[in-house]
């Protein structure tokens, strides 16, 4: 996936001189994970710059640059380090267009690794999409595959408004597929059907799609037909696709790595409860991380919902009606 991200950045930088990259170690070393490898060499240190180590500064700079017509793509190396930038995101980035009544805007992309499963130290494995989705005026996107990452990143950079682009960290190297480097963007604000089914709708996103797809396989062997929806766009949520699926299956299980409390799963469940109550044959279930900080490495895999937990939740849902 990391190569798909690099290709998308390369593509857009080659064609749009307004696109600039900034981040800690984004330049000379090509980013913490190699997403910007070789870009400083190609495009120079004005367009791909290493910044001082200060996340609030990075996003604040992006606001100013974007307000004057650039399209900054910022990299925050780990999700636990985005918090100093929240002031700038909440108070400025998300509402520049609104506060100036359309006069100025912030076409900024903030790339952040998302989630754990790599045995990293504290603060490197968080899933804070719900915190970000709660901020009005920004989009929150989370691809589940290299192809989706390529298309959605292009769309995000081209979008006239700010996008927080969450990159599932354990998929950086593990998820591989051939993609055509054709500069075609994928649609924002849309979720994607990954597997058609008739008994239950499984909604998930990011790296959790791996476990969710495995669960669907296991369930298929038990003659339970699961439809898998990749949310992709965490904010705004593509309600129509989800409602259509639940309308067909009558059951909903949401799986996410983030903690349960006020998580995005609750929003998906609320959408279905508000608009599709009559379609539900069983209560909605969520399979999530626990309401604790992400534990240190030795317990990390016990925190991230396992295939078994998803399968059990679906079995209970089927049993319930």
């Amino acid at each position, binding site marked *: 996936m990391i190569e798909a991200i690099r290709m998308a950045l390369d593509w857009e930088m080659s064609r749009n001189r307004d696109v600039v990259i900034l981040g800690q*170690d984004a330049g000379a070393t090509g980013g913490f994970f190699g997403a910007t490898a070789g870009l400083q060499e190609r495009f120079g240190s004005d367009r791909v710059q290493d910044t*001082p180590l200060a996340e609030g500064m990075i996003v604040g700079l992006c606001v100013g640059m974007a307000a004057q017509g650039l399209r900054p793509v910022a990299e925050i190396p780990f999700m*636990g380090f985005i918090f100093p930038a929240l002031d700038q995101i909440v108070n400025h980035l998300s509402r520049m267009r609104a506060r100036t009544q359309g006069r100025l805007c912030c076409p900024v992309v903030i790339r952040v690794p998302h989630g754990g499963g790599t045995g990293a*130290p504290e*603060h490197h494995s968080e899933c804070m999409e719900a915190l970000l989705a709660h901020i009005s005026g920004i989009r929150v996107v989370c691809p589940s595959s290299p192809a989706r990452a390529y298309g959605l990143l292009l769309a995000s950079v081209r979008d006239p408004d700010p996008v927080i682009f969450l990159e599932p960290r354990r998929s950086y190297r593990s998820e591989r597929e051939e993609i055509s480097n054709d500069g075609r963007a994928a649609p924002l604000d849309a979720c994607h059907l990954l597997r058609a089914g008739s008994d239950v709708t499984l909604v998930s996103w990011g790296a959790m799609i791996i476990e969710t797809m495995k669960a669907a396989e296991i369930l298929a062997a038990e003659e339970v037909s699961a439809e898998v929806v990749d949310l992709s766009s965490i904010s705004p949520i593509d309600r129509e696709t989800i409602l259509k699926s639940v309308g067909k299956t009558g059951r909903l299980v949401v799986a996410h790595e983030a903690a349960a409390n006020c998580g995005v799963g609750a929003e998906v469940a609320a959408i279905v409860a508000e608009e599709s109550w009559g379609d539900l044959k069983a209560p909605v279930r969520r399979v999530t991380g626990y309401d604790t900080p992400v534990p240190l490495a030795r*317990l990390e895999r016990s925190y991230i919902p396992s295939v078994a937990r998803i399968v059990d939740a679906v079995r209970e849902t089927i049993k319930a009606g």
Partner: protein
Amino acid sequence: MNCPDPEGSFPDLPDLGRLDADGRPIGVLPDFARDPARLTELYRFMTRVRVFDRRACALQREGRIGTYPSCLGHEATHVGSAAALAPEDCLVPSYRECGAMLWRGVSMTDVLLYWAGDERGNRRGGALHDLPWCIPVGTQSLHAAGVAMAFRARGEQRGALTFIGDGATSQGAFYEALNVAGARQLPVVFVVVNNGWALSTSVSSQTAAKTLADKALAAGIPGSRVDGNDVIAVREAVGGAMVRARAGHGASLIEALVSSRMGDEHAVHRLDPLVRLRRYLRRLGAWDDVEETALSAECEHEVDGAVHTCFNLSPQPTDAMFDYLFASVPRHLERQKRRARRYGQIAES
């Protein structure tokens, strides 16, 4: 002299140290350094840190523990600073100061457990009022100021000591901490450990300040520089700043210059904190090869024991995620705790 060269090493800093690279004293040594027994103690401890650090790095390379921030070349800064603390002072580390933490009584096993990703590594011993590891860079600066504020509020003659890497001096939290520490004359000492590099970014691209010690100026607190490879100089500088802090005269910033090129032969020869002190101790006749060999064996043995414990503990129950989140576990977490138990500890999938 003012800025690190782009290679990340520093020229010799004779005016900022107490021993030159050959282990010869520069001027008159401070009182504590005239007692060979105290210097030997510092030397022994730095060796202990070095042996531990080398093993931890090896374990990381072998993939047996996770990320481990090496303190190679920082031994004099860590040990010299920690040795300047009174037991009731408070250490506020970042993530790299394992040398200082070991001095404060944290066990090697606990350090290994933490970096191996085991929550039990945080149930550490040692000075129990010290703060834990701090990974989000620079954030600990404010905690140190807060600790100092607590001491002041209670009228206690105690001080806080914190470490900040050069990269972290670009963070807002660092400036905020310096500012309030100056404004309130807080009993806190900021040791900025400058190895010339924030990951791949050099100090000169982080700041146009001539020295990181200059950053103290705007806060109205004294800022000074010290050769961070020289344990005597560090002990003296931090000791003076702590005395000042405890006496109610306010905060200080000390920039300790260390090398990021300890793998390099030249750097080892010129800058290695252990080599320098060993040369001096030998010259005094306070250290010889027999003692060196015995010390190495002793340290290796201690590290062996810590490694053994780290990898032979019973598996950590999933309860560890829940048990210390609140003083008493709320009901919804009790439910989640039971669910987690049902699935047990899940290994890498």
